[in-house]
């Protein structure tokens, strides 16, 4: 694959147990089949063990947290006990304000991601199909891409103010780049044989794009969406934490300013779960959309 991006800043999947191959890599799910090894225990016990171990691990760590805090190994002031934290979280969950904040943060994430998608996918398709355009805009993209979106915070604070608009702008700006690059790569990586076949059958360019190019590029776009989703959530929260736009981040800032450590930890736990929820939602979406793709199929025995 020749072009301005080879050999340099190719995007890789962040590598988080992704089953999508980044360009230039063998699909991680396609492994040389191992020779069947002798197993001492029957398969049923193994499967139960697999389920049990993570649960045991979680339980143990929660207990550890409780012990470390209660025994003042770390001062309970600095590290509220696990039970205290969860009690506080439960209390928070009874308040309307908490759920409003969750809603604000999720809203920021969703709008940021949506906007980023609406911008990045079409532009990515254009840059992916036109080698000329890709080359022309290579330098600006390569320079703007690695800029941490966080640096825009002071600027946004002074220009757009502490409004939803700032939060969305930040989230969109950050989520835009990974999706753009992944889309570009996805479109460029389409098997030329497929498009040639389409062309030889007289399929018109726009339809080729819709029926051949986009489905082929879909795995890349899906990976890009997953990365962008993470980025969007982080930036929405960051805007709230640093600028004070309403949401979980702002609540956390508040808790910290007033020294309400228990609330602080409770909010952190809650934020972690929001992050998990978003992650699972996107993964499920990806699985549903790509159920036909080889990387989603289990290795044939």
């Amino acid at each position, binding site marked *: 694959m020749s072009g301005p991006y080879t050999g340099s800043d190719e995007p*890789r999947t962040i590598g988080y147990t992704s089953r999508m191959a980044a360009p230039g890599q063998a699909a991680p799910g396609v492994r040389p089949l*191992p020779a069947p090894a002798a197993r001492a225990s029957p398969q049923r016990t193994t499967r139960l063990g697999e389920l049990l171990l993570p649960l045991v691990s979680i339980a143990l760590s929660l207990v550890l947290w409780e012990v470390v805090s209660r025994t003042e190994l770390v001062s309970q002031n600095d590290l509220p006990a696990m039970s205290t934290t969860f009690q506080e979280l439960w209390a928070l969950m009874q308040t309307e304000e908490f759920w409003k904040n969750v809603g604000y943060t999720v809203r920021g994430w969703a709008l940021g991601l949506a906007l980023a998608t609406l911008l990045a996918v079409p532009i990515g398709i254009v840059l992916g199909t036109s080698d000329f355009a890709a080359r022309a*805009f290579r330098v600006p993209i390569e320079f703007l891409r690695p800029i*941490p979106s966080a640096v825009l915070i002071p600027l946004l604070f002074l220009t757009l103010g502490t409004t939803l608009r700032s939060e969305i702008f930040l989230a969109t700006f950050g989520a835009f780049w990974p999706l753009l690059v992944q889309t570009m790569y996805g479109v460029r990586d389409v098997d030329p044989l497929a498009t040639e076949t389409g062309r030889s059958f007289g399929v018109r360019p726009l339809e080729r794009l819709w029926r051949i190019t986009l489905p082929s590029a879909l795995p890349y776009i899906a990976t890009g969406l997953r990365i962008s989703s993470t980025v969007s959530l982080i930036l929405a929260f960051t805007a709230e934490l*640093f600028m004070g736009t309403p949401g979980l981040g702002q609540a956390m800032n508040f808790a910290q300013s007033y020294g309400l450590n228990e609330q602080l930890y409770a909010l952190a736990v809650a934020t972690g779960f929001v992050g998990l929820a978003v992650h699972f939602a996107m993964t499920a979406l990806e699985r549903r959309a790509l159920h036909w793709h080889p990387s989603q199929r289990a290795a044939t025995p």
Partner: protein
Amino acid sequence: MSRRAYTGLAVAAEVAVPIAILAAWQLWTVQADNQHFPRLSTILAEFQDLWLFAQFREHVVPSLLRIGAGFGIAVLAGVALGVPLGLSRRARALAMPHIEYWRAMPPPALLPISIVLLHDIGDRQKIAFIAFFCLFPVLLNTIDGVRAIDPTLIDTARSYDIPRHERIRRLVLPAALPQIVAGMRTSLSLAVIMMVLAEYFSSTSGVGYVLLISKNTFEMGPMWAAILLIGLLGYGLNLLFLLFERRVLAWHRGWRAATPQ
């Protein structure tokens, strides 16, 4: 259009577009006369004033050191944990819920906690914060890399009765290295971002601190100079890493080119 003409035009575009963008910025800022968006010339002047070399030692060096230390710790810990996790399914089953949880947690959510827990807003807290979140790309990529090792290699090592520590040192680590390096690359970009976040949130020195101060004092010149510097930092570090990668993985490129996958 002939191939030569096309290439010529493309190169011209590659050069022209960035210049056009910069020129447009200059023209627009001159015309708009908006205090928040100074002219390019102003920004560059501020940049030189600030970073070359007045405030370099005071702010840029601490930031770089924090990035370096945080990244370094993350890589060491990521590989040290990733290898055993990659080799043992049981260990993975134990560790995975934790990894998945912390990976999904938006890093800024831990900023206040890191301060409360460590009683510190100095280097220690910053490095810990950076190291913690930069751990995950390296860790996960190491696990993936180790798991993907060709079973034939393992069988070969076993058939020659090569002891475990030798296997890990001479077989597992080099084989997983390409994947580990990919993780390191992500980690490095992440380190820059984490540094900025940590310093902007609360600090007494560093580039992120300058960003914060300039916002508080409404000094747009230093702010834009800081933004520019951070961009250059990210770009520069990435470039350096690329050189490192090219050297360390030279064999990998050759091998991929020569071997049908």
